[in-house]
């Protein structure tokens, strides 16, 4: 029992700190418009079944797969990275777009985009407010996967700092995929199209960072003159290496900067997409 309390504290404190920073940001640093949009959007997630369905799917898949197929229990060592965290981004390729697909396509389908954009707010207020609401949904989802940490602690003595790093890295990847979905959903009014296109892009982003691809690029440099720059670009925005570094507990500034820049760029691209669509 004591162990559980210690464990809860170890994880509850960072979680609460993140939540507190977030709430403070919303209440004091961001304009009222962002807050209003955020509130509406978040409420909309939790009054429709979508958030709950995704929670169940995500927790079901991630826990079932790690327990039964990837051998968290058989491993003998209490390390979550290999059996658990390395697979999470794969599920997120599907889950994050499923959370974000409605962000802007739904506004377009309902016609409410016309209302929002004629209200006295800058487009970035709306983009940020909606993005943050979806980010909270993903955050809740990761928090709910806490039982696996408890299980591991029950079975052995893992390095909880590394596990926390694994969650942080996973969340940052989820936020990247969500940002991509935000752009795509601004382009189409169909949620299904937004989902499929986003999943495809996220897959490329994830695989683009495969170590093999980097090696392949080194060897190909001479021949494939046309494809090389394209592959190089995909490789350079590949999310995987940044995730791997962070998830191992190596908190590198370079990786953090990558994630923040990537998300900021996507949110900016969302505003461009919305503007171009109207012109």
């Amino acid at each position, binding site marked *: 029992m004591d162990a559980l309390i210690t464990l809860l504290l170890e994880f509850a404190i960072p979680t609460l700190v993140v939540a507190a920073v977030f709430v403070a940001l919303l209440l004091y640093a961001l304009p*009222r*418009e962002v807050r*209003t*949009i955020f509130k*509406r959007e978040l409420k*909309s997630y939790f*009054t*429709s079944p979508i958030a709950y369905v995704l929670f169940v799917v995500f927790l079901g898949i991630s826990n079932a797969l790690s327990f039964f197929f990837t051998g968290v229990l058989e491993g003998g060592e209490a390390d979550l990275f290999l059996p658990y965290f390395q697979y999470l981004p794969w599920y997120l390729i599907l889950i994050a777009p499923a959370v974000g697909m409605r962000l802007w396509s739904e506004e377009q389908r*309902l*016609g*409410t*985009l*016309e*209302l*929002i*954009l*004629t*209200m*006295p*707010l*800058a487009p970035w207020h709306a983009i940020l407010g909606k993005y943050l609401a979806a980010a909270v949904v993903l955050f809740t989802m990761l928090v709910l996967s806490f039982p696996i940490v408890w299980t591991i602690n029950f079975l052995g003595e893992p390095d909880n700092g590394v596990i926390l790093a694994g969650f942080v890295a996973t969340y940052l990847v989820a936020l990247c995929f969500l940002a991509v979905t935000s752009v795509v959903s601004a382009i189409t009014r169909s949620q299904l199209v937004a989902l499929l296109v986003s999943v495809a892009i996220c897959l490329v982003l994830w695989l683009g960072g495969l170590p093999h691809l980097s090696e392949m690029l080194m060897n190909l440099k001479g021949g494939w003159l046309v494809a090389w720059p394209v592959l190089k670009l995909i490789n350079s925005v590949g999310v995987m290496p940044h995730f791997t570094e962070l998830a191992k507990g190596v908190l590198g500034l370079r990786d953090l900067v990558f994630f923040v820049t990537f998300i900021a760029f996507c949110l900016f691209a969302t505003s461009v997409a919305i*503007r171009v669509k*109207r*012109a």
Partner: protein
Amino acid sequence: MIEVENLHKHFGSKVAVDGVSFTVKKGEVLGFLGPNGAGKSTTMRMVTGFLPATKGRVRIGGADIEENEIEAKSKIGYLPEAAPLYSDMTVEAFLRFAAEMRRVPAGEIQAAVDRAIETTFLEPVRHQSVDTLSKGYRHRTCFAQSIIHDPEVLILDEPTDGLDPNQKHEIRQLIRRMGETKAILFSTHILEEVEASCTRAIIIDRGRVVADGTPEELKAKATNAGTVVLRATGLAGSGIRAELEKLDATASVEVVESSDEGLTARIQPAKGKADQLSAAVFGLCKDKSLTVHELKVEEGRLDLLFREITKKETEK
């Protein structure tokens, strides 16, 4: 309050709005008329800042809609044509959301929501979810969000669409009343609406303004304006007709019904003599000792003018 200067909108090679200019002052209700696809909604979307204009300027209370976007938008209440709403909210929650977004101070939100609900007769559905509302209620809910912050400028795209006759009447009264203190621009293709609530009207066709004036001025431009209708007996119909045609002020006589006893005719005034025609006809009847059963001057009809103007444009 609303100043629109030489507004253009091109969608690819298609010209949707082609140099529209007008102003709406405080205390004015401007009716925006035109056939479907004339560019009414596109113009309104540019005025509200939803669509960027290809060329031209829009100023709301002095603030440019593109350069000073937020200030300009904060003065506007807007009802889009399709009356879009978030279907997962209740009517009251949606109006609260709109009030917050439209910068109603936190302490006044409840009062603003109550007032808007009362004004637009939404009390019976206040707690109902938007996706269960009938078309009329949906429309009024969206109308309510446009007036929630008591804006100086109201832009309404077909505000009475989908309402029953009683509700239409109420909304027209409301527009008329609010027009005393605000600048209102509303589009419609229902002509009686213009007469019922506008102080001025613009007819737009193929992206251009083709007529602009008070409803009375516009009606005077219709071909039937000033026509005198006469039903008189005491002489053979053909005789009366001949006498009428001799009058200076007459352009032409159209006989509706004629017999040995008398006739019914519509007399078109000659150009510039519309105001003399009825007196001349009456004088004639007196001279010839005719019994006058009916003598009246027709007001121009807006629908006639509308058809004439928009048809001419189409033929060009």
